[in-house]
Each structure stands twice: as structure tokens, then as C-alpha cells.
């Protein structure tokens, strides 16, 4: 949060937006990753790695959507910080509760 926010003085629309075909490409990548995910789900050999792989892939999808569809990559950095505040706390909370309830590997006694 300590990012010092710059004082840009004109309106919001000075950064250039990607072209339509760029968006389509992102869409295609997202669809492909989804396909891979489902494949991992069905291929039994992948079972041991399933959970971490799936989490990674879906995180990648999330990042793509945020950066490009939601243009966060093109916005000033402080918006990322605002958003990250929410994401980090939410992730921490989900993780902590899963540890406490032993859904994640057992770190200790309940």
C-alpha cells in the first residue's frame, strides 16, 4: 500500500487498448486451459498431481482474465494493490481454515 500514487492529470483513457483479435486469442487460451484441466481430471495417471496442477492452471486463467479482460495490467499499479489486498486476505483465510480443518495436509492436531 505504500506505493506512491502518481499524479497523472488527464483522464482515464490515455492508455491504448489491445485489438479485438488479441482478446480472441486470450479467450482461446482460456478455453484450451480449461480443456487441459478437464483432461487432467479424467486421466487417472495424473491423480497424484491433480490438485496442485489444477490449482495452478485455474490461477493462471484467473490471472489472464484479470490482466487482460479487466485491463488491470494497463491500469496504474495501485489498483493492483487494492485488488491484491482482497485476494491475499481471502486466500490466506481459505488456506488457514483448510489447515485448521485438516482439508489441507495435516500440520498438527485439531
Amino acid at each position, binding site marked *: *500500500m*505504500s506505493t506512491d500514487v502518481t499524479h497523472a492529470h488527464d483522464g482515464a483513457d490515455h492508455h491504448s487498448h489491445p485489438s479485438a483479435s488479441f482478446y480472441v486469442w486470450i479467450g482461446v487460451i482460456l478455453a484450451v486451459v480449461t480443456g487441459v484441466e478437464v483432461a487432467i481430471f479424467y486421466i487417472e495417471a495424473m491423480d497424484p498431481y491433480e490438485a496442485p496442477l489444477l490449482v495452478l492452471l485455474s490461477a493462471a486463467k484467473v490471472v489472464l482474465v484479470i490482466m487482460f479482460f479487466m485491463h488491470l495490467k494497463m491500469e496504474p499499479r495501485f489498483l493492483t494493490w487494492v485488488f491484491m489486498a482482497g485476494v491475499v*486476505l481471502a486466500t490466506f*483465510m481459505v488456506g488457514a*481454515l483448510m489447515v*485448521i480443518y485438516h482439508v489441507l495436509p495435516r500440520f*498438527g*492436531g485439531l
Partner: protein
Amino acid sequence: MSTIGLETPVGREATAHHEEDTGFWSWITTVDHKRIAIMYFVAATAFFFIAGLKALVIRAQLMFPEQTLITPELYNQFFTMHGTTMIFLVAMPMAVAFFNYLVPLQIGARDVAFPRLNALAFWIFLFGGIYLNSSFLVGAAPHASWVGYATLTSPEFSPGQNTNFWLIGLSILGIASIMGGVNFITTIINMRAPGMKLMRMPLFTWMTLVTSFLLITAIPVIGVALIYLGFDRLFGTVFFQPAGGGDPVLWQHLFWIFGHPEVYILILPAFGVISDIIPTFSKKPLFGYPIVVYAGILIGFIGWGVWSHHMFTVGLGPIADSFFVAATMIIAIPTGVKIFNWLATMWGGSLKFTTAMLFCVGLLAVFTVGGLSGIMHASAPVNLQQHDSYFVVAHFHYVIVGGAMMGLWAGLYYWFPKVRGRFLDETLGKWHFWTTMIGFNLTFFPMHFAGLFGMPRRIFTYSAELNVDIYNQLSTVGAFIFGISSVIMVWNIVKSWRSGEPAPANPWGAPHLEWATPSPPHHYNFPRIPTVRSREPLWHKQERDEILAVTMPDPEEEPLMPNPSYWPIVLAAAITLSWALVMTGIWWVIALGILPVILATFMWAFEPAFPEGHGH
């Protein structure tokens, strides 16, 4: 180096040329952050008296062992509503009153980012509070404590509307808090005057920012928990129903994931307030400004990872317990850093003990006591003895009343001249301070002993055998003295509002931008937005002159301010109504209830925010 700006005795009368509308409806429809702030303050003070009255009844009931002044059921309703009201309808909104009044002025803005949203949040808060307290009228006030642990709130153990009032009331208030949080974050990030870098903002604004982040992140968690509870009660889900496999302890996790950040929501504004006041009355800049800022951020952040210290007796196992012991204790460090920085600010200063400053000193003295008893609780094994005893009651009243409330009262004396253009009476103020100190300590200090000697909290009576009568008697006497001190405060406000001594623009020689406006400020705050070049803009002669040159004179043309609007209050009423209808538990009634909300939302959206001919 710096000369203090006492030489700018510009009262409001000297500059005002535009008569504002002050009628009743102008308050109902106002979107001016300063008026909203005043309404917040008045409402919160009213709720303070309501909740304080309940505390007095509680104290009367506990004065002697085995008394039967009120029935156990009523006692339970009283302490539940005392806690709920004090937290959600007193401490939080009173802090929000200060946010509202000061943040735009401190950062050099004309209003908050979303003025109508601001008004909406206020009305939702007010209606939510009234709704919650109206439960007494139908004899079904919430009775399962302010933490509402499952399964005591299950339909099986709390049939009737009591708990519905609580869960619906709190979710209504939650909406208002999130709106407020979004609004203040946006305002602070986006509406600062030129040159007002983040690291030049007054500490109060900083703490508002941190608090707002806590609001928008913590409230959703209890929001979801309340949704679960509502579904359990009305639609037969089994989130907290052990018979269906639900775990009542999950409620505690969700509640405290919210609840602990909540306590920092209460204290950080007060820390902000005194960080602004102490330098002013020490004639010294805040010692270690960046450190104090970072400490505040750190408190807010770590505060997220300590919730289970309210659950050491729940049986989470030694590893979880140890983690939360360590995390909790770490918070002592940034808090201590703040305390020592305040002390260092005063060290070598030129201290003037106005009432505002007295409250700051009082806060330092007593908050530390509360913080240190917090450290005792934080040691899990010790907590096993202290948990749910009066020792805890002592702890949190020390930090909330002796910290949060005293901080806000300090702020009241400090900023009242700005709001009204008149001083609060200092003599009454000193009376207020000393009766508060006596009453407060007499009320809550003996509770440590009652707790150590085994008196549990939330009991409507106690056995004479416990041998804790004396502490309870002292507490009760103290509570009444404290009650008198509150009456003095209100008397002071009323009296000074009407006939207080007139105050100049910057009566205390304070360094921040809000003091560069006439007292009271114009409704548009600043005729022209000043440029800031340092952390204490009014303490540097040249910078001050430049700023006053643009903030004090009358503008040739008044800046354009947003329209007053009826829709905030209408929408707030609609939202409260639709939420209240959830009590029926009939899905189509609930669905119908949403209609007015949608309607009001659209009317709101299509009403121009600014006078015709502008905007679009």
C-alpha cells in the same frame, strides 16, 4: 522554524456570504459530508445513551449477589444489545462521523468521492440501528450475546424473532459499512489536493484508509456467516447444525475472522485522532511519522491472522493454538511503537493541556493497561483461565472505552470549533475528563479482580460465595459516575453549540489543511483547492500564506456541488424494509420486498447528481 498560525482568526461570519438552507428537509436530502458527519455523531451519541442505559441496568443488577432486579431473559437481552449497540451503533459510526467530517477537509477535497452513496450509507445505518433496537418494542430483543455463537442461535434453542432481529440488523449495518469503506478508500486514494502525497497525509486520514480496508475485507466475512445463520434458521440448511454434520465452531471462526479486525476498526481511528492532536498541543511534528503509519498498516494486516485467540478454549489443538499465540503477541510490537512515538512526540515539546490533550494523555495511560491485559489473554494457557471471565470484560472495556472512545472524545474537543465555529466549554470539558477518568477506572479496574477470582461474564447473577461483591459494587458506583460524565459531555455539546465562545479558523495552531478553512467551513470546503508541499502545511510560514490565500477568501463564483437528493433516504428505507421482510421466511414475500429496492435504485441512477446543465 515554524510559527504557529494563531494569527488567522477568521471565523465563519467573516467570510460567509451564501446563506445555506438549514431547514429540516435540507438535512434529510443533504449529500454534504459535513452534515452527514454531524448526523452520524448525533445518532451515535443517542445510541450511546441507549446502550449506556442498558449497561447501567446491568450494573445495578450485578451490584449485589443474587439480585433479581430483572429477569435472566431480560438481562441477556440487555447485555446482548449493550454490546451490539455499542460496537455497531456507537463506536463504529462515531468514528465514521469523524471520517466524514475530516477526510475531505484534511486531503483538500470538496466532498467524498460518492456523496450520495455517503448519504445512503448513513440512512441505512440509522434505519438498521432503529430496526435493531425496535426489537425491544416487540419484546424480542436479541439475547444470544453480541457474538451469537451457534448453536445457541439455532431455531431449536432460540425460537422466536430475537435472533432474526440480530442477524438481519447486523447485515443491514454491514451494507452501510462496506459502502463507507469503498467511499473512503476511493476518496483518499483519488481526491487528494495537488502535492498531498500519501506520505504527507495527516495520520487521521491514514488510519481512516487502513480502517476502511479492514471494513471492506472483514465485513463480507460476517455477512456470509449471517447469511448462513439466516438460512439455517429460515430455510433449513445445516451449516451450524451438528445433527446434520454442521460444525458450530465454524461460526466462531467466521465471526472472529471478522471480529478481530473489527476491534482494530474500533481502535485505529482513535489512534489517528490522537496522532493528530498530540503534535498540535506539543508544538512538535509527529515523531517518526512514517513508522507510525507503517505500524498502523501492520496492525491492520496482522490483525487478520489472529482471530483464534478468541477460541483458545475451543480445542483447536496445540499447533493452531501456538500459531495464534505468536501472531497475536506480535501485534504488541507495532502498537508499542505507536505508543512510544507519541511519548517521544511529547518529549521535549511544549505541552498544552486542553481537554482534547487531556483525553490523549488519558488514553495513553489506560489503553496501555487494556493492551497489556490483552497480552495476558494472548497466552493461550493463561487464556484458559481468563476466557469468558470478567477479566476479559475488563480488557476490552479498557481498550474500547479507554482507547477508542477516549480517542474520539479527544477528537470531539479538538474539532468541535471547526464544526461549529465555537469552542466547547473547557471548564465543563475538564469536568468531563476527570469524571470520565474516575468513573471509567472505578468501573472497569475492579473487573480484573472479579475475573481473576472466577466471576464468569454474561451471568445475570453470581453466588455470594464467590466473594466478589466488593468489586461489583465498585464497578456499579463507577458506572454511574461514568454516566454522569456522559451527561456532562452532552450538556457541554448542547450548551456550546448554542453559546460557546467563538473560535477562529485555526484556534489550536494546528498544522493540517482542515484548519485552513473558516470555522465552520464553507459547504464546498475550499473555494480553490490548495497545493500542499509538506506534512505540516500550516506550520511553514510561506506555505501557510500560499494556502490561506486560496482557501480563505470568498470565491468569485461558488464551486459547483452535488444536488441534494431524496433517493438516498428512500433507497435506504427500501433496503431496510426488504431486509426486514426476510424475517417472515416466506420466499415470495422476500422476493417482493426486493422490488422497491430495484425501483429506488433506478430512480437514483437516473437522477442527475449535479444541477441541470452540468455534468452531461
